[in-house]
C-alpha cells in the first residue's frame, strides 16, 4: 500500500498549539546555590534530618559518580549538561509539615487546580489517595488514615526515612544499586524526596495510590526516589502522573524507582508522563533520564509496568523486571509519543533468572512531526531460567514524512528450553483511513484520535480506568495537528 504525502492546513495549524500547562507558580523558594560537591550533599542530608546511614550512602554514590562518564549508547542527542549549573535543592517555603489541606499554601493548590487535579476533589474521589510532590517536598498526603488501618505505609520518602529507617535501609538500592548507571548514581547522591510504599503480608491495597510530580523551581533538577515494597501475597497499584510548566532552559530530571515484589505479591505501576516537551523548534523541554526497575524477589511474584509517555524533550527510560522467583511474571506496556523535535529512547529489560518465568512486552511508538522514537529492549534468559517464556510486540506508527522510528531488540538466551518471540510492525496513518473516517462524519482530528487510540488499545486497557481516560485526552492534545 502506498502512502501519499498528507497536506492539510488545519492540521498544520494545530501542530503549532502551545503547551497548555506552561505557567510558573510564584512562591518563594528556599534554594541551595548552584553546583554539586560533598558539602551540598551534606546540606541536603542535614536539611532532611537524615540518619547517618543515608548520608554515607549518598556520599558513596557521589564519590562513585565522580568516576563515571555520561552514557552515549542511546539514540538521543542533546547539548552537554553542566551539572555544576543546577540547583540540587529547592523547597517551597511553607509552614512546617501541613497537617491538612487548609495548611497548604493556597498558591500551590491553585497550581494543581490548573493542572486539573484539585486535591480537595481528588480526596473526595473514591479510591484515589494523592501524595503530591511540588518540586522536592511533599505538600499533602491524603487517605492516610484508611491506609494506616490496613498497615499500609504510603508517605513521602523523607518521612519514611524518619519513621521507618529499617525498611528504607533494607530495601533502598537493593534493586537499583547506587553504582547502577550514571543517572541513577547521581540520583542516589542528591535525591530530595519521592514516595514510599509498603504493603504488608497478605494485604490488598484497596485504592490506587497516586502521585503527581511537578517541576517548578527555575533551573532545579529534580531527583525523585520512589521505593515500593509488596510483602508476601500483597497487591498494590500505583499511579504516577506528571506535568511541568513551560520554560526555556532545559531541565534535567533523573528519577529512580525501585519495586520489590516478594512471594505471591503483585505490583502494578502505571505512569502518564506529560512534561514540557519543548517548543516546535526543539527549544526547552525536560530531559528525562529515569531508572525504573522491579524485582520479583519471591516465587509467583508479578510486576507490571504500564507507561504513556507523551512529554519531555528527551525520554531515556527502561522500566525493567528482574524475574528472580520461580514462576514470576514481568510485563511492560508502553505508549511513547514524540512530536515536533522530541526524542524518546525507551523500552524495557526482562531478566529471567527463576524457572518458568514469563514476560511480555507490548510497545507502541508514535512518531509525528520531526520526532524520533526508539524502542530498546533486552530479553535475557539466564542458565537457571528453565522454561522461560517471552513475547514481545513492537509496533510503530508514523504520522509525518520527517519523523523516525527505530527498534533495537537485544535477546540473550542461555537455556535451551526458553521460548522468545519478537514481532514488530511499522505503519503510517494513511490518507485513505482518514478519508474513510471523515466520510462517516468524523472531523480530521477525531479521525486521527480514533486511529491512534485503536493503535494504543492494548496498552490503554492495562491502565486503571480514570488514568486511561486521562491518557487518551493527553494523547489527543499531544497529537493536535500531528499529521503532515
Amino acid at each position, binding site marked *: 500500500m502506498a502512502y*501519499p504525502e498528507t497536506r492539510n492546513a488545519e492540521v498544520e495549524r494545530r501542530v503549532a498549539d502551545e503547551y497548555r500547562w506552561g505557567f510558573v507558580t510564584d512562591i518563594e523558594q528556599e534554594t541551595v546555590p548552584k553546583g554539586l560537591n560533598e558539602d551540598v550533599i551534606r546540606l541536603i542530608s542535614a536539611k532532611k534530618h537524615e540518619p547517618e546511614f543515608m548520608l554515607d550512602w549518598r556520599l558513596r554514590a557521589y564519590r562513585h559518580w565522580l568516576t563515571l562518564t555520561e552514557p552515549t549508547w542511546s539514540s538521543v542527542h542533546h547539548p552537554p549538561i553542566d551539572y555544576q549549573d543546577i540547583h540540587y535543592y529547592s523547597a517551597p517555603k511553607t509552614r512546617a509539615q501541613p497537617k491538612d489541606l487548609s495548611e497548604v499554601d493556597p498558591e500551590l493548590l491553585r497550581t494543581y487546580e490548573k493542572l486539573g487535579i484539585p486535591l480537595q476533589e481528588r480526596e473526595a474521589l473514591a479510591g484515589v489517595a494523592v501524595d503530591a510532590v511540588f518540586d522536592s517536598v511533599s505538600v499533602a498526603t491524603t487517605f492516610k488514615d484508611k491506609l494506616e488501618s490496613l498497615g499500609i505505609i504510603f508517605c513521602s520518602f523523607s518521612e519514611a526515612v524518619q519513621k521507618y529507617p529499617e525498611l528504607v535501609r533494607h530495601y533502598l538500592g537493593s534493586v537499583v544499586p547506587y553504582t547502577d548507571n550514571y543517572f541513577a548514581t547521581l540520583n542516589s547522591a542528591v535525591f530530595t524526596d519521592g514516595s514510599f510504599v509498603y504493603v504488608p503480608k497478605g494485604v490488598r491495597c484497596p485504592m490506587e495510590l497516586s502521585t503527581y510530580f511537578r517541576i517548578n523551581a527555575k533551573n532545579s533538577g529534580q531527583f525523585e526516589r520512589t521505593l515500593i515494597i509488596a510483602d508476601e501475597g500483597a497487591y498494590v497499584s500505583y499511579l504516577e502522573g506528571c506535568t511541568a510548566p513551560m520554560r526555556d532552559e532545559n531541565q534535567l530530571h533523573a528519577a529512580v524507582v525501585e519495586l520489590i515484589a516478594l512471594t505471591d505479591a503483585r505490583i502494578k505501576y502505571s505512569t502518564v508522563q506529560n512534561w514540557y516537551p519543548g517548543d516546535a523548534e526543539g527549544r526547552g523541554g525536560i530531559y528525562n533520564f529515569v531508572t525504573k526497575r522491579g524485582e520479583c524477589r519471591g516465587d509467583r511474584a508479578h510486576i507490571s509496568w504500564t507507561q504513556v509517555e507523551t512529554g519531555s524533550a528527551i525520554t531515556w527510560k527502561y522500566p525493567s523486571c528482574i524475574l528472580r522467583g520461580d514462576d514470576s511474571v514481568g510485563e511492560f506496556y508502553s505508549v511513547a509519543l514524540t512530536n515536533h523535535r522530541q526524542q524518546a529512547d525507551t523500552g524495557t529489560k526482562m531478566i529471567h533468572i527463576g524457572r518458568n518465568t514469563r514476560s511480555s512486552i507490548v510497545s507502541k511508538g508514535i512518531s509525528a512531526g520531526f520526532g524520533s522514537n526508539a524502542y530498546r529492549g533486552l530479553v535475557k534468559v539466564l542458565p537457571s531460567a528453565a522454561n522461560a517464556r517471552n513475547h514481545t510486540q513492537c509496533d510503530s506508527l508514523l504520522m509525518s514524512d520527517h519523523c523516525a522510528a527505530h527498534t533495537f531488540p537485544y535477546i540473550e538466551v542461555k537455556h535451551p528450553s526458553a521460548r522468545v518471540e519478537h514481532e514488530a510492525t511499522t505503519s503510517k496513518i*494513511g*490518507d*485513505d*483511513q482518514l*478519508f*474513510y*473516517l*471523515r*466520510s*462517516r*462524519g*468524523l*472531523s*480530521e482530528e*477525531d479521525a486521527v484520535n*480514533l*486511529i491512534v*487510540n*485503536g*493503535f*494504543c*488499545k*492494548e496498552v490503554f486497557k492495562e491502565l486503571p480506568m480514570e488514568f486511561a481516560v486521562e491518557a487518551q485526552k493527553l494523547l489527543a492534545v499531544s497529537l493536535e495537528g500531528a499529521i503532515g
Partner: protein
Amino acid sequence: MLHIENLHVSIDGKSILTGIDLDVKAGEVHAIMGPNGSGKSTLAQVLAGREGYVVTAGSVRYLGHDLLALEPEQRARAGVFLAFQYPLEIPGVANVQLLRAALNNLRRARGENELDAMDFLDTVKSKLALLGMDDSFLYRAVNEGFSGGEKKRNEILQMAVLEPRLAILDETDSGLDIDALKTVAHGVNALKHPERAVILVTHYQRLLNYIVPDHVHVLAGGRIVRSGDARLALELEDKGYGWLAPDVQGNVQGDVQGDVPMEAPREGRL
C-alpha cells in the same frame, strides 16, 4: 436532490471525467454502469470528497449546497454516504465505537441529542437484525481481518445506522456471494424512502435483479453515453459494454459463485 452539471475531473493531470450531467431526485434509485476505467468510481469518490481529484469544470449541487465546496465530513453530516469499494481497516477500533462516533456526529450536526450507550445499542441491534447480521460484528475491529463479503456488509450496516439522504454504493456488489448480495440489496431496499436517493455504481447487472433502479446510466470514456430505465441494464446484459463503448470489452452479468475478482471481470466468460 443532486444536480451534476458538465463535471470534468482529472487525476494527476489525466482527464477522467469529461462532462457528466446527472439529475437525481429524492426517492429515486440510479444505477451507474460501465466498463472498467470508465470513471464510475471516480464519480463516487468525487461526490464523497476524496482529495487528489481535481474538478476542472462543472458543478455539483446537493440539497442547495455547493457540494464540491464541502469537506468530506461536512458532506457526511449533510447526509451523503459512500459505501467504499475497498473499505479500510482501522485496527483496535471496535465497529461499535466507530458507529457511535459517526452517528453522534451526524446527530449533533442535525441539532439532535446524542444517543446514550443504551439507546445507541438498541438502534444498532435493530439494524443488525434487519440485515440478518450477527451482534459479534459490533465488537470486532473495523474491517480488520474481515473477508471481502464481510467488509461490504459492514458498509451496509454503517449505511443502515447512519440513514443517509444520498447513499452512493461504489461496486458494493463486486465479489459477493449470493447471500451477501441479498444482504446488500435488502439494506438498500430498506433504506428507500421518498426523501432519500440511492446511486448504485456497478459493473454488473445482477445486483439490479434485487434492487430495481428507476434510471440506468452507462458511463464510458468519462461521460454518460446512454441513459434509460431498468430495461437498459438488461439490454446491456445481452449485448455487453462493447455495444455502447466499442473500445472496451467486459461482461455485464455477474458471476454469482462468490469468487469474482474484485478488480476486473474475466474476459471471455459470460
